[in-house]
């Protein structure tokens, strides 16, 4: 009880805290005064100081004040600040939450502020993720997708050469076979795992961004819309309002069992996290995002590594989406805040940031101008996004769906019965999705 009271008080204090930007006194250069826009962002994430400095250089009468929180606290903080009288002008939030925030009236639709041609230039998965009821709430600051990284030094003696072309991507059966061959030790004495444990979310199995793909890949978007194959592929009703029959049909249950077998039958990956398992040569393969390329390039792990497209079962699919910038609906400076978001997401600043970070832009024109994105290994991520990338199932209640399904997949990986657990997840999610 004390704990809940503490949260309530923290919320009260936060709701009265001054986050909103303010305009300073007039100066010779800025007769209307220097406007300070406030940005709430997760620690160690963009917009970087270099991006802010570049934008301030182009906008002499505006300043950006960055307020940072640990990523794990970001959603809670936004939820609390959303109700405040003076929230920040701009938030860097997790992209799949766009519909939740838009439906709650937290975010400002950016359509009136978008220059001509920008909307058409945005890659489709980003548009799908950041559009709600026809309005665009963020152009997307960056994109990501997952691929399979491998330790080439470990695979070479085994004669295993993973494909580099998305058209020749492995199936998961082929990938698991390679992982079994590469794994050293078995039972309780594994020294090198076939596949590293997930480093996403809480570091346990089940995180939707990574592990729901094992289920969705069992589906087929070309199947009849009322079929299990179709529903499994989308994993949530297309309007985001129903999970019943979409995550717990026979095909989806089969997919969840396939996922669980990696832990309990093939035993090629552990149930608990091992920090830096791939870099420390405790795993032959790991599933990670495009930024991992930069990480391995800048911090040489001491072995040859490579990237292969994410394997699939029936249909190739990768989840897209990343953190992104949006304007708070309560901002008192919507024009200026929207300008910042659009400039750093779509213009030269976005291109400079993409080159520096090796990140994947959301603008097709920027991607076309960066030669490194057309070359191995980053071309794999770009090709995947363009050809079969989809956002995590969009819904005004994605956050709740994410928690419920992640917990279910975690339990299934730990050994719970897939049908029982997915039925429970559908029961838990259904009333929330229909609110």
């Amino acid at each position: 009880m004390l704990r809940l009271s503490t949260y309530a008080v923290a919320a009260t204090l936060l709701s009265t805290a001054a986050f909103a930007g303010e305009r300073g006194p007039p100066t010779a250069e800025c007769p209307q005064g220097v406007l300070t826009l406030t940005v709430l962002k997760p620690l160690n994430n963009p917009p970087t100081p270099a991006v802010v400095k570049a934008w301030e250089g182009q906008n002499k009468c505006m300043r950006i004040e960055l307020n940072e929180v640990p990523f794990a606290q970001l959603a809670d903080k936004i939820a609390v600040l959303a109700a405040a009288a003076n929230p920040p002008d701009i938030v860097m939030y997790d992209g799949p939450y766009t519909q939740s925030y838009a439906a709650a009236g937290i975010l400002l639709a950016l359509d009136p502020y978008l220059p001509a041609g920008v909307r058409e230039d945005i890659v489709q998965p980003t548009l799908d993720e950041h559009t709600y009821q026809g309005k665009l709430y963020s152009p997307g600051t960056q994109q990501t997708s997952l691929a399979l990284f491998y330790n080439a030094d470990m695979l070479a003696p085994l004669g295993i050469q993973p494909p580099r072309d998305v058209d020749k991507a492995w199936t998961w059966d082929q990938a698991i076979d390679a992982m079994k061959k590469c794994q050293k030790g078995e039972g309780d004495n594994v020294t090198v795992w076939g596949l590293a444990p997930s480093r996403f979310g809480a570091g346990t199995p089940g995180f939707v961004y990574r592990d729901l793909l094992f289920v969705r890949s069992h589906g087929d978007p070309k199947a009849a819309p009322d079929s299990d194959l179709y529903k499994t592929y989308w994993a949530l009703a297309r309007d985001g309002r129903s999970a019943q029959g979409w995550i717990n049909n026979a095909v989806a249950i089969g997919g969840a069992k396939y996922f669980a077998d990696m832990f309990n039958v093939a035993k090629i990956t552990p149930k608990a996290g091992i920090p830096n398992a791939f870099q420390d040569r405790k795993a032959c393969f790991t599933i990670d995002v495009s930024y991992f390329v930069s990480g391995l390039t800048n911090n040489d792990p001491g072995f040859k590594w490579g990237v292969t497209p994410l394997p699939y079962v029936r249909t190739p699919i990768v989840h897209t989406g990343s953190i992104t910038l949006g304007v708070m609906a309560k901002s008192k400076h919507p024009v200026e805040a929207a300008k910042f978001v659009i400039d750093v997401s779509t213009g030269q600043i976005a291109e400079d940031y993409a080159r520096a970070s090796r990140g994947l832009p959301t603008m097709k024109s920027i991607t076309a101008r960066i030669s490194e994105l057309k070359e191995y290994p980053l071309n794999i991520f770009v090709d995947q996004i363009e050809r079969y990338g989809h956002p995590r199932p969009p819904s005004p209640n994605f956050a709740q769906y994410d928690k419920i399904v992640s917990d279910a997949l975690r339990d299934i990986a730990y050994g719970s019965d897939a049908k029982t657990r997915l039925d429970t997840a559908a029961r838990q999610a259904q009333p929330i999705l229909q609110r």
Partner: protein
Amino acid sequence: MDAAGKLRHWATVAVFVGPFLGMLILFQYVPVVAMLRDSLYDFSLLNPDRRSFVALGNYLTLLEDPDRQQAFLVTFVFAFGVVATVIPVSFAIAIYLNGRLPARAIVRTVVFLPVVTSVVVIATMWTFLLDPSNGLINNALATLGLPRGEYLTSKSQALPSIIVMMLWQQTGFATVLFLSGLQGIPRDLEDAARVDGCGPWQRVRFVVIPLLARTTVFVVVIMTVFSLQAFAPSLVMTGGGPEGTTNFVAYDIYALAFQLQMPGLASAVSVVFMVIVLTISLIQMRVLRAKGAE
């Protein structure tokens, strides 16, 4: 006391008591009233202004919802497990520390150390210890040729694992309480029992335990309340899983309000939980007073 004196007296009272009273009202009672009000509404934290009055709807949901019922059950089993293990272990250690035995100071420090360590640090440390693949506990068991455990990834072992962690953490505090109780027992009573022919076990059974009844009930109350408030183990170690077997009510309230965006239902769970905890505490306190009067 003249009028000016009374005024000075009450001004002094106001200066010393006022700030605390104001803080108490602001940080304890206002949130409780807000919680009672919120429990009658359905809304989201993302937009709390859009709320609909559901009267006792959240309470009815709570009664019918198997997940909420499981959270209450898990919490009470956990509290019982902690109390049932901490009391005998801490009592035994207190008896040891109360004697003139070797390494007493070291043992006292070692036993008390977990009490002053952050519960989040402890939960993180035990997560590594209980790792089924690379954890220290399983490695030690393997070295001894014993079977490994699944611990936090097993729905039958997760709750007992956390109870063991809590036993390790809370034993020091309970031991200190028992120790203070033991040191309050007049030495001549034990001497008299010894003269009457009582052995060590009989002296504990017929002298120490009855005289420690008040301390014991106090420790039971404290441990029960601590256990019912458990939050960090769910948040840091298990996320409430597997299959809700470590979904303590305090964590359930947090998840409902902040992750599932159902603060109305979370408030209803809080109200019911508050009533239950208060009832348990009142019963235990009544027993405490009764024992103290004997």
